[in-house]
């Protein structure tokens, strides 16, 4: 009786996936949508990476060999927009979709239909964005930060970019609302907040950050739009506005955004290290508090991106101290991970390799971040390749490595097959070597005085730029190994067990591999 009624109630929920391509168009299943997000992110990764290779190819040698400086500028602009909004954020949302319901013992996301919309907005947003490259006048070339008045100088691509940002923003905010609702309302009985895996915690905090700051970005770009087309003068001194105000509003969004790109990574690493150390995460509670304090601090440090605009001394001091403070909770996290490894019983499968790669190189990026916080020194570092090296060290071996670690870690659960361990390890080692060849020399040229966002440079920077370009092509092409491993794993391979990893702990490892289309329709018991 009850089964029949239940079937009647939740009609969609009880059969498998629909047949044909419309399955993907209409799907409201969290696993399907998660897969869509991840595949979308993978495609964008290669588009954004291709742009990076154009940049590096032009910078291989001094002199302009290939592209017009204006096109070069639009490549740096688009590379950033694509990588941030098209790769890292969708990949994290995809992982959240796949894993959060399974980690908290819920049957699906709270708002499945909203979930479908928030994904399908993304391809349209990026079509809009990428189409500007084929317009007369080319794509946006004022940097992803869209600083006024430079961004107002370009052609009509600005309007396209702004609408694309609006769509991406709406998608992210909808996705975030969904995630918060899922975490608060869909947990299995007994899954208290302080029992949630850290990935869920970091996503909860990230989702709040997104809801809080994406609308601020939306406001800032709307002001740009009305300044450009409707005669307002928010950012024009002539009409009583101030171009510096744009930077303040932008970075009020921009700095929390940086943590949006890294907090879920912290969650992933906090899942993987205990599994392969066969030891529970050290300092779970302090990890949660550290995440929360990083999120809080991220709202009061934005002006450290603007130490050269001419701030009052007191402002510079405040933002310097506040920025330095961030390294405390971040340090706590790193120490906790190492303490988790300490006296564990470690094995080094691909996910663990990526997690350790994350730990080492994110720490390097974090330490250069601490250097950047020192205002007087930052005045020399600002807008040089030192900054480029810094944020690529936290974003590539940080965010991107965490996403790859997560893929290797959970892929057996998604596909039911083990990935090819040998090629996974090759992927890790080749990527890591080239990545450092690519980004480490950027510290040198930056300190030696090479500004960022320039298509051509002086002879003194030639050697290290050539090295970096070799690293870039090596790193770029080694990602094809990743695609190979993923495709191979989707097609078949050694069958994965339910638990997959010996030391795995968590609800997602209690369902069969591959995870059935519907999981936890009756809440699992929580220890």
């Amino acid at each position, binding site marked *: 009786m009850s089964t029949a009624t239940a079937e009647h109630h939740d009609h969609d929920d009880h059969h498998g996936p629909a047949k044909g391509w419309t399955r993907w168009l209409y799907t409201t299943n969290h696993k399907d949508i998660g897969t869509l997000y991840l595949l979308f992110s993978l495609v964008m990764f290669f588009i954004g990476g291709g742009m990076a290779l154009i940049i590096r190819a032009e910078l291989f040698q*001094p*002199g*302009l060999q290939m*592209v*017009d*400086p204006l096109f070069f500028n639009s490549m740096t602009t688009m590379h950033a927009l694509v990588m941030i909004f098209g790769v890292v954020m969708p990949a994290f949302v995809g992982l959240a979709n796949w894993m959060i319901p399974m980690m908290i013992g819920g049957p699906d996301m709270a708002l499945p239909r909203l979930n479908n919309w928030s994904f399908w907005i993304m391809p349209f947003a990026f079509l809009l964005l990428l189409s500007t490259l084929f*317009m*007369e*006048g080319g794509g946006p*070339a*004022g940097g992803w930060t869209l*600083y006024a008045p430079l961004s107002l*100088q370009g*052609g009509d691509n600005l309007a396209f970019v702004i609408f694309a940002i609006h769509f991406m923003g709406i998608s992210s905010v909808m996705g975030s609302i969904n995630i918060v609702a899922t975490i608060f309302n869909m947990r299995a009985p007994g899954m208290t907040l302080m029992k949630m895996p850290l990935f869920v915690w970091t996503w909860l905090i990230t989702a709040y950050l997104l809801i809080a700051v994406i609308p601020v970005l939306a406001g800032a770009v709307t002001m740009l739009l009305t300044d450009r087309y409707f005669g307002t003068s928010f950012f024009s*001194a002539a009409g009583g506005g*101030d*171009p*510096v105000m744009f930077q303040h509003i932008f970075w009020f969004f921009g700095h929390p955004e940086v943590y949006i790109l890294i907090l879920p990574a912290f969650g992933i690493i906090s899942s993987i290290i205990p599994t392969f*150390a*066969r*030891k529970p*995460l050290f300092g779970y*509670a302090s990890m949660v508090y550290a995440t929360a304090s990083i999120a809080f601090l991220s709202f009061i440090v934005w002006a450290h991106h603007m130490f*050269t605009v001419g701030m009052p*001394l007191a402002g510079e*001091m405040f933002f*310097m101290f506040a920025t*330095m403070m961030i390294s*405390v909770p971040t340090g*706590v996290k790193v120490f906790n991970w*190492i303490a988790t*490894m*300490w*006296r*564990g*019983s*470690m094995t080094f499968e691909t996910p663990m390799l990526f997690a*350790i790669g994350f730990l*080492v190189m994110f*720490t390097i990026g974090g*330490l250069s971040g601490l250097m950047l916080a*020192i205002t*007087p*020194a930052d005045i*020399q570092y*600002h807008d*040089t390749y030192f900054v480029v090296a810094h944020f690529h060290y936290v974003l590539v071996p940080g965010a991107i490595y965490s996403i790859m670690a997560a893929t290797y870690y959970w892929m057996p659960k998604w596909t039911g097959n083990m990935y090819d361990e040998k090629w996974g390890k090759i992927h890790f080692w080749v990527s890591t070597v080239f990545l450092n060849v690519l980004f480490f020399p950027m510290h040198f040229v930056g*300190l*030696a*005085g090479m*500004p960022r*966002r*320039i*298509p*051509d440079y*002086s*002879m003194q*920077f*030639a050697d290290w730029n050539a090295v970096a370009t070799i690293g870039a092509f090596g790193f770029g092409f080694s990602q094809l190994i990743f695609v190979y491993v993923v495709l191979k794993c989707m097609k078949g391979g050694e069958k994965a067990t339910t638990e997959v990893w010996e*030391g795995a702990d968590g609800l997602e490892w209690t369902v069969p591999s591959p995870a059935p289309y519907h999981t936890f329709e009756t809440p699992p018991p929580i220890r």
Partner: protein
Amino acid sequence: MLFVLRWLGVVSAALAGQNAFAALGDVNMTVGVTPISQEVYGLHMLIFWICCVIGALVFAVMFYSIFKHRKSKGAKAADFHESTMVEIVWTAVPLIILVAMAIPAARTLIAMEDTSNADVTVKVTGYQWKWHYEYLDSGVSFFSSLDAEHAAARQVGSGVDVSQFEHYLKEVDNPLVLPVGKKVRFLHTASDVIHSWWVPDLAVKKDAIPGFINENWALIEQEGVYRGKCAELCGRDHGFMPIVVNAVSEEEFDAWIAERAPVETMADAGAQTVAATTEDDDADREWALEELMARGEPVYAAACAACHQANGQGVPGAFPAIAGSAVVTGPVDAHIKTVYVGVAGSAMGSFANQLNDVDMAAVLTYQRNAFGNTVGDTIQPAAIKALR
């Protein structure tokens, strides 16, 4: 504290400085030639070594664990997962390090902001894509843009081997001349978009923001040539607006100013010449077509080629072509107005304050008769003068 900074700076220069890495090219921040730049360098090396020590400790523990606590070596997992004591320690220790770090940083910052009692004041105005310098005390002012040879070499497909230039992209037509041993105050502003004036050896980097004025200062202790770049993305030729500072003795500086001051201050403040300063600037006489063409070519290279390209073809969709342009081959008045006044809402600004009468007339004439344009007429300097 300062002593420690200096000492660390010296030690680290010896350890990591020019000697060790000489073969690898420049890999570190310059020590620079001002007291501030030396302090900044000291801070940089101090925080660098602190980071190195922290990094080394963290990685040592981590890699020890990775090698020792592996399953293949028979390690059994311990079960501890909490220790309030440890957590407090590794929150407090970094905090103490940070405070220790913040104190010298704050001291340097205060010194950097103190622009009082300056001996010389230079107003630096950023333009797309050149700098304008004005010595407020003497009224000497001029534009400074990328050296013409470099500008030609850096075009896409120029075929020039740029390694022949020792200071590729760091050479200008008119360098900024400053006296050593004097406190020089810089006033930074911009005329179109945001630029940033950066000379690493002076540890001066300040944004130039249209409509606003920023300050900075430097006391150069050593004669020499110091080179820098625009550090804030400012459009297509952001990478091509270098800065060259020629630091000379006080006497030399005074002589240099005296030599320029009478000429420059008597001329209209707007009438600077981009190409060369010593040429005949008689706007009242009648100029021949050949004369104007010869004069116009270098002016075009300096003032127009950045956008409209050396071959006059422009960049489709972004910058219109000069070759075959309806404006250029059309009525004289409209052509003059486009250059003199600019085009509202576009990257084409007014050149009224950037070119003197003769240069503007020459470049207009040149545009009308080059790149396959064959209008055949001249635009006389007097016509431009009449507009002023």
